[in-house]
């Protein structure tokens, strides 16, 4: 059970989060099938640091980017996926 640093809520238990897969840069929606196929299905996941998306389901309901070493489970970094500043 990991401890995940949510940039909004602090260090929280993995049970509060939903896994969202590796953070990937998807092609634009108007790109053709071949480009999408390569981007969507052909990803490699060697053990080691990987940036992933996690959703803080039982918390702030934000998607966050977490860099996790998949071999050791060390969390190396976490941040919001956007630079947009929320205005209350």
């Amino acid at each position, binding site marked *: 059970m990991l401890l995940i640093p949510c940039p909004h809520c602090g260090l929280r238990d993995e049970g509060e989060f939903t896994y969202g897969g590796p953070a990937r840069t998807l092609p634009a929606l108007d790109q053709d099938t071949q480009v999408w196929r390569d981007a969507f299905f052909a990803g490699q996941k060697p053990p080691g640091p990987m940036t992933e998306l996690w959703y803080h389901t039982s918390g702030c309901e934000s998607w966050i980017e977490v860099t996790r070493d998949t071999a050791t489970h060390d969390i190396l970094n976490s941040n919001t996926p*956007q630079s947009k500043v929320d205005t209350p």
Partner: protein
Amino acid sequence: MTRLPQGGLIDRTQTLHFTFDGEQMSGHPGDTVASALLANGRHLVARSIKYHRPRGIVSAGLEEPSALLTVTDATGSTPNLKAPEITLRDGLQITSQNNWPALDRDAGALLALGGKTISAGFYYKTFKWPRDAWHKTYSKIIRRAAGHGQVDPSTNPALYDKRHRKCDVLVIGSGPTGLSAAITAAQAGATVVLVEQDSDLGGSLLQSADTIDEMPAREWAKDAADALRTLSNVIVMPRTLAFGQYDHGLVQAVETPQSGSASTSILWKIRAQRVILAAGAIERPVVFPSNDRPGIMLANAVRTYIRRFAVAPGRRAVVAVADETERRDTMAALQEAGIDVVAALQPGDKITKTTGRLHVSGISWRGANGKRHSARCDLICMSAGWMPTAHLFAQKGVRLSFASETQSLRPPQSDGPMRPTGGARGVLTTADCLADGKTTAHQVLAELEMHKHLNLNQPEATPAPAQGFQTGPGKAFVDLQNDVTRSDVALAQREGYCDIELTKRYTTLGMGTDQGKTSWTNGVLEIADITGANPETIGHTTYRPPYSPVSIGALIGAEVGNEMVPTRRTPFHDGFERLGCVFQTSGDWLYSRYFPTAGETMMQAIKRECLATRNSLGCVDMSTLGKIDVQGPDALEFLSRLYCNAFAKIQPGRLRYALMLREDGYVFDDGTIARLAENHYLVTATTANSGSVWRHMQKMAQVDWPELDVTLTSVSDHWASLAIAGPNARKLLTALAPDFDHSSEAFPFASVREGLLGGDLPVRVFSVSFSGELSFEINTPAGYADALLTRVMDLGAEWDITPYGLETLDVLRIEKGHLSIGTEIDGRRTPADLNLGGMVARKKSFVGGALLNRPALQQTDREQLVGLQPEDGETSIPYAAHLSQSELDSKGQAPLCGHLTAAIESPILGHSIALGFLENGQERMGETLWAHSPIAGKSVRVRVTSACAYDPKGERLHD
């Protein structure tokens, strides 16, 4: 009785009664079942698994390999508990295992006479032919004979719970190392949790003759424990077994509280910044011929029974302890108990045999000079050395390495959260353990910036005895629990099962409830001896949680039956209860199923509800749909990218049916998009997908398209939604007196209006239909649900309004060929498969569009949604049927071309109808097929039709 007249940590003022195999026995508070059995003179407590040899109590801790017992109390019986781990309680019924008809005359022991034939691999070699016999004959007999105790199949009434705790420093174990570490950490102000598996704190100090600070060790331990208990930053948890280490400083432990029964326990999840593993060490048995007889015990266990429990485990003892200091201490303990030490073997002596039928009665050995000796005895105290209890540390995948100086597997230095300390890293003397606990605590305090860094010296691991005992030929057990002998280990090496993982599985060395706690190092040393390999290269098998068996009940906690997930009730729940609703579980929801009148069956109720809705008026709860409020200047662009159909032309006040694809092009969900205002939309998601659609939309908004100015709000629980459906629906709407123009011209199908009903009830009304009838979904803030339901039922009485539930909802939608998540939208369908290919926009880009264009998803002969009707117009189509062009052959098989997703009796059509997926289905209208249902044992001729069986032109939606 062999209870000593004085001493021990037992409360002699109270007597506890228990039975062993029906025999009345007694003990005192402070006893374990093991110490109480020994106090009653009982050594023989079990029969071994393979040879049914008599076995006794070997140890005084969780490493116990032999004394497995079944314990029965008011909550039922629990098998395979280790005698030393069970705290004695009044009224326990203890029974021995693995014997018939009785422990002292076990018929299975005859097997022991043929013992040579049941060597490692015996089953593999013997029962491999004839080919069918394993399943038909052998396995039935062997499985009956295999295993230890019997599981109690009755419901367990005991209570379990799960709890969480958090601290700076978790200390596992309360011996000299753990107490010293906990005190050091507590004094620095750290929050400390100290867990101890035993009921008493002190670990090895409880049976130590050492002095600390000029106090007897046991008194020092009591003082230290009392001092820790008074500190507000320390939580002391006795009777709590830390059984697993997980990521990021998480340790799971199971607490067996003092009051209540043994099977009532609490699972603790303890999250610590640092974990000091002070679990001590386990004594290594000596391997010699017939080393398994009752009365042959680990030396430390003998000292424990004498000093802690005031029990004399024998009268005439032979001491076979390799380490000189420990030998002297053991002899001292024996003398304290008045036990004669008839012989003390010297390292290098070769033990050649023991004698005795149900208890050891003598031992023979040969001295280093070759001289033969023998002695009559009823107790042998043995020790070859010590093995660090680093199991929890190794569970995270770190390899332990065999160190020749300690003759044991030791953990490497670590900078992770868990630090093996004291006995757990091979440091054995009391003074060194105290120092090591302090040193490690200071180290982690410095890391946590709670104390300045001190340069304390870490004590060295205590070296193993220079010389051990030799063994003569004969059945010498390496693993007592699994009856694995030296010759079994040797056989595995000869037959090529040399890798340690293979040796384990071939011989069962290190398996079972003790997982080789006493046997593993001896096994490694045997292999090294046989093969000449360096024991450092042999390694170990994988350590996994739990360290010692944990009951499944503790892992489940209170999450059983209705407590597994919270039950969700819709805002209409109470109102529906008054209407006599029968509810059913649907996902997380307790949803209305049907509304029977007096004496009506479910089928009769469904038929009545369907006909009432088709012919006049019905109402149904739609509150469980996901509802997402989408606002902002880019709301339209956001939704346009998200859904595959075109709806740019949608006007405020109107709504559209919409289809959402996954990124891979398959259909994800369907729902409606209502435009409430210029930049304000309300979209619905199906009940089953309401959570995942919300997450998906959040992901798109937050991660993929942060440039879009859009705000999402989940309003699923804010609105109660009641659909009124049927030819008289608009008349009821009129009677409800909305404050907006709701004529068929002003408020046509696929529209939305906001306003008040009767001048005071705030609503949003959506003219959408899942039933295929003229229908309005009336949404009101959840708190007004009862008011809405009351008005609808009161005013609808004029048209005999009939509430309906999930069953009728399903019949009505199947008659219309409308889709349901999980049955038709099953994650493998394209829009065209669902006859919705025409909805897919050509002129815009949307999620899933690119991958939907993959050739395999565009083939025209894919399985497509069709309707099915009985060819003869009356036979009932069985549920869960497969479609085929041919009859079943003599083997009950037929080539398939599709399957059914739903089959019902349609009250309005008067016959059975079904939906299903059929290869190239759209081109096969009118074709006749077989619907085979092996479950119903039925095959029916069916005709392929359009998926929409009722009102295919949709005329009933309008008035």
